[in-house]
């Protein structure tokens, strides 16, 4: 019995971290256990063994947070015009095409109306699978529209971040989205409408330096990478190894940058609780 276990303990040390068995089984990057995919999905894509939170796509996020998986998507037809005609090793236009094909989305964001425990809310969920969830003109515009819609309808808004930051291929245009969204949030704040920012793995760069950190509450899933500069850049700048757990949710909580770290399955009740507090009975 024992030798069985030892062997499997050594099996996984080689190869890439991201190798996943096709189909039914998934390897957890946290505890390196092989998990039956259905077990994982039944557990909201959180490892049943070590509670590692797997990245999930924007649609799965909406399904988890909104009642009965019922929601109405809006402003989903915006597409980038590739204003800089940016070409690096590959043309940005072809990267966009590929991302659209892979994800079935037009950019790295879904806006939706729905109900959370019966209360109408607006959710903007970022899609990390679309060019790293990067924010260009479309993401900036969609989030701004979601905020404006929240002001217009006086509905709470939840923005779920999952992004590497600004989209380099749109240059300074993506930078200006930070200002645009933050200005809209100033108006939301003045209108006293609740905004809960949910930071998920990863939330870095321009997204952290704008709307992700501007919620009435900023909450994060456990173990999410959250920061302004990426860890590699910091290592290169200060020329030393970074401490274990640096820029993870728990690290930010400890340093006073988050209001709470909330496990995925408690996310919906947590937001519902907060909205109970924030929304005055009409």
């Amino acid at each position, binding site marked *: 019995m024992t030798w069985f276990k030892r062997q499997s303990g050594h099996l996984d040390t080689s190869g890439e971290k991201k190798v996943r068995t096709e189909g039914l089984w998934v390897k957890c990057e946290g505890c390196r256990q092989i998990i039956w995919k259905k077990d994982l999905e039944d557990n909201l894509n959180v490892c049943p063994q070590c509670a590692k939170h797997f990245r999930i796509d924007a649609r799965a996020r909406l399904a988890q947070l909104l009642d009965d998986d019922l929601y109405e998507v809006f402003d989903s*037809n*915006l597409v980038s*015009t*590739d*204003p*800089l005609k*940016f*070409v*690096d090793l590959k043309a940005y236009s072809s990267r966009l095409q590929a991302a659209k094909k892979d994800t079935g989305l*037009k950019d790295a964001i879904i806006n939706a109306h729905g109900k959370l425990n019966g209360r109408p809310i607006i959710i903007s969920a970022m899609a990390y699978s679309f*060019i*790293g969830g990067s924010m*260009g*003109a*479309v993401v900036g515009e969609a989030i701004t529209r979601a905020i404006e819609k929240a002001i217009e309808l006086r509905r709470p808004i939840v923005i779920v971040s999952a992004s*590497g*930051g*600004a*989209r*380099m*291929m749109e*240059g*300074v*245009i*993506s*930078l*200006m989205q*930070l*200002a*645009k969204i*933050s*200005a809209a949030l*100033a108006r939301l*704040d*003045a209108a006293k409408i609740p905004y809960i920012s949910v930071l998920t793995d*990863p939330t*870095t*760069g*321009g*997204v*952290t*330096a*704008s*709307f*992700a*950190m*501007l919620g009435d509450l900023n909450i994060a899933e456990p173990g999410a990478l*959250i*920061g*302004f*500069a*990426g860890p590699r*850049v*910091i290592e290169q*700048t*200060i020329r030393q190894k970074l401490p274990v757990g*640096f*820029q993870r949710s728990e690290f930010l909580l400890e*340093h006073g*940058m988050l209001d709470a770290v909330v496990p995925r399955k408690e996310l919906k009740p947590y937001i519902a609780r907060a909205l109970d507090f924030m929304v005055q009975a009409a």
Partner: protein
Amino acid sequence: MLSMMEEHHPKKNGNKRTGNSGLKAQQELVRIEAQITRLQSMQGQSGDTPQQIERLNQRVNDLRREVASQLNAWERTELARHPQRPYTLDYVERIFTDWSEIHGDRGFRDDPAIVCGMARFHGEEVIIVGQQKARDAKQRIYRNFGMPHPEGYRKALRVMKIAEKFKRPIFTFVDTDGAYPGLHAEERGQGEAIARNLLEMARLEVPIVTTVIGVGGSGGALAIAVADRVLMMENAVYSVISPEGCASIMWRDPTKKDLAAEAMKITAKDLSALGCIDGIVPEPPGGAHTDHAQAAELLNTALQQNLAAIKHLPAPELLETRYRKFRDMAQFFEVEA
């Protein structure tokens, strides 16, 4: 690309090179200037020496103008980082009077990478906020190469709120390669500090005029640049990531920085064409580093004009115009059926 980063390695790349700038014409200029000095020291050698000097001076100015008009994005980046380029306090000294610095964020420390203070602008009380670089090694470290920590941005916001309380206009000067990407900066919430400034600047009830005087490095620049008027000096650059950073991520090769600089559209002309800035401030022939006094004079004029245009607007109108400007900016998308 996956993490939008204020990637910067001051010792490894651009900054080191700018000292012996890669601009060939620049070297030619230096040669002619040396010739002029030599001619001037050879007094009484020949009757036409003054004319020769005059001719050479003419040639210098022509050459500088020519060079300036043909610079590509990377060469402009080098100019924007030129160590002899005027920094915030160089302009403050030449354009403003009665400068009185205000220090500290009231929370952690005073960040010397951002200077803030009261001053008079043609007799009028104003607040100044700007990133500050330095020239010698010791000062550079003191100023952290002009790369602020969160407390720098928090100081800036605190001082801008003082301006709002006492209804004084704000001038900000942007000159940073980016917010500092360090361990302590992250611990103290670099992202939050920048984000807070963006939100608060959008609703400050006083006129704000921003000038990118050198390098506008991403979020670290924008954090003091949400203004009614955003100007760029002719040779300044403003980008979402440094050309080196972009090159090492998108080309996987930091030496492709010239390609990255070109592709990202980072010059004043580019930004103006994209509608992301409100005006370009001319520089002396050859760049601001050749003549600080003249550069300051040109900036002075631009600041006066831009402040005059907005300072009589009532606060609600000012805020509405500022909001609309950023709201309608950079809308490069289309609606697909």
